[in-house]
């Protein structure tokens, strides 16, 4: 393993992937190279069919590639068998899907605790971890509801909490805001961004939502299975004006007002959380 690989959480070289439907080839990825450093908040953008999902699925050890190198957390995941991949996903990667995809028969809390229990943690410990993450995604008070009793935005927050609960280094989110209205989607992205800053978890998000692209610490543009543009923002410290309020196109006065609003909200949140714990 080279030095450059050691410093990357995702290291892709010459990645090729082609789907076959009968004898018809559907090329998805076309010699893709990519490095993602730990702690990045990266967004993959591109037209429909450009290969965003395919990329995320390969990085997430859900699909194999035809050729190329794929190293995630320094491990060659193309060389793993299906059992090893499952273990790898369980311990290293959190997933957020487009359609929330929670377990219907479990409460929000149980959904989040599920991965911890799969990891072998006791039920009690798992539930505590779940409570913690539900508070972090600001729905600590909804832990006892089942998915069908939650709004789409709330369900997606549960999904984010579930993705974080296994304590992964990397979270992959394939179009996490596509099923949400733009306001809710923006809140979700802001939440993920905040979590990225606070916990240093690497995020790789696919989206064609402009709000998501706005928030990107780094924007990777795909077209026809290749990276056509990779724009990177200098990582900024958490709680700074620019990081907490990513709506860069707004005039400064509005950005400051938004920033102050977020600070207030987060203070209020902390107080609420504290009160709840006490009562």
């Amino acid at each position, binding site marked *: 393993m080279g030095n450059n690989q050691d410093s990357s959480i995702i290291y892709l070289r010459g990645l090729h992937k082609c789907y076959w439907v009968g004898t018809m080839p559907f090329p998805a990825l076309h010699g893709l190279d990519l490095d993602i450093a730990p702690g990045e908040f990266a967004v993959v953008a591109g037209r429909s069919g450009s290969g965003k999902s395919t990329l995320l699925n390969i990085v997430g050890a859900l699909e194999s590639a035809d050729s190329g190198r794929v190293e995630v957390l320094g491990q060659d995941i193309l060389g793993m068998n299906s059992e090893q991949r499952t273990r790898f996903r369980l311990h290293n990667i959190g997933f957020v899907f487009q359609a929330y995809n929670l377990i219907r028969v479990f409460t929000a809390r149980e959904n989040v605790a599920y*991965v911890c229990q799969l990891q072998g943690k006791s039920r009690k410990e798992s539930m505590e971890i779940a409570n913690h993450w539900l508070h972090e995604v600001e729905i600590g008070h909804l832990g006892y509801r089942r998915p069908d009793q939650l709004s789409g935005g709330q369900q997606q927050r549960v999904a984010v909490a579930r993705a974080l609960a296994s304590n992964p280094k990397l979270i992959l989110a394939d179009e996490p805001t596509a099923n949400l209205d733009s306001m809710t989607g923006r809140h979700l992205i802001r939440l993920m961004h905040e979590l990225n800053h606070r916990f240093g978890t690497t995020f790789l998000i696919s989206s064609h939502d402009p709000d998501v692209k706005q928030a990107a610490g780094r924007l990777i543009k795909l077209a026809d299975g290749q990276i056509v543009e990779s724009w990177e923002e200098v990582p900024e410290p958490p709680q700074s004006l620019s990081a907490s309020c990513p709506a860069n196109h707004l005039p400064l006065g509005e950005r400051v007002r938004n920033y102050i609003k977020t600070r207030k909200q987060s203070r209020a949140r902390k107080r609420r959380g504290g009160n709840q714990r006490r009562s």
Partner: protein
Amino acid sequence: MNQSTSTVINTILTVALRNLLAHRRRTFLTIGAIAVGLASLIFLWGFNEGLHRNMLGNFQDAIIGSIQIHHQGFFQHPELSKAIANPQKVVEALRQADVSRYSMRLESFGLAASDITTQGVMLIGMDPLREGEVTQLGKRIGIGRFLAPEDEYTLILGATTANNLQVKLGDEVIIIGYDRFGAMLAESFTLIGIITSGEMGLDKGMAITTLATLQEMVDMTDRITTVVISSEEKRVPSLTAELEAALQGDELEVMPWYSMFPVMKEWVTLHNGFLYLFLGVVLFIVLAGELNTMLISMLERTREFGVLMAIGTTGYQIAGILLVEAVVIGIVGILSGILLGYVIVLFSSNYGIDLSILLGSTSRFYVDPLIYPHLKLDHLGITSGVILIASIFAGLYPAWRASMLQPVEAIRNG
């Protein structure tokens, strides 16, 4: 490791049980189908067993008893020359085996003659005091009475024979027989009873008198040809073996009822065979029904399984979820089926099931019109076990299919 394994197993169990409860109607319909199938099988087994017990009991009670002991070859060719050499030894063997219900007979071929005609008969000399220990022949005397100890040269005939001879109670019947050297003998008897059982084997071909009378007639005082034993059905095979061992080397044959009349045993086996066939049909229905439920449940959750696999659930664990669901459905179905079946059998064995409505007359087959179902544990065990195995199989295929799911495809298409 152990602790974490049990956490994982608990989690899998929870997913499975929650899913069963989330689809209560479907779950309980499937459980209900299994329960009704099993309960009807249990009832049929019980009815069948009750019928067989009744039939075999009546058959043995009628005249042949459970086990007979004769001189070697007597059953095939009954001749007075094949009398039991040492009856005392047989009595001793019976005492050793703790058998108290037995009776002695002297049996031989003969002719019954009236003024009109002659009929070939089996001459049977019975001990009027002890016969009641082994058979219920006395109850089948429809006209007249059974033998009494002080009777001399009294005779009982079957209805058909009496009819053919055109004799009635009190009439004289001449019995012609042979002594053990083959010399012909004849005596005059008085008809005191007529067997009206409706059974061909009883109503025709027998002439019954007291043991003492027949012994005197053929000049074989204190000699017998046959010892008839009554035993619990369960004990018949072991008792046969026990007596055979005790009487080894005495030129005796120890014959259980099913060796003397194998057709009866075959009839029971055949009848049980039909029940196994029925078991197969119920099994198939249960299997198809539960398989259908499990497949629907599996297909419905394809996406969910894909997600579970994506976030770190293994194929084995997914298979485990479905298998647990299938087995829980099976076990709950079996338990309720046993309960339901048991209640039905208990209820019907209390009141009996009246066959006369269905069959009119049943006496022809040694069957009473009222049947009391009886549940045998091994039947219950076989049936429940087989249905449990069926329910496991109903879970295996969906479980295997679910475990082979590819997460990406399952999430996209589910």
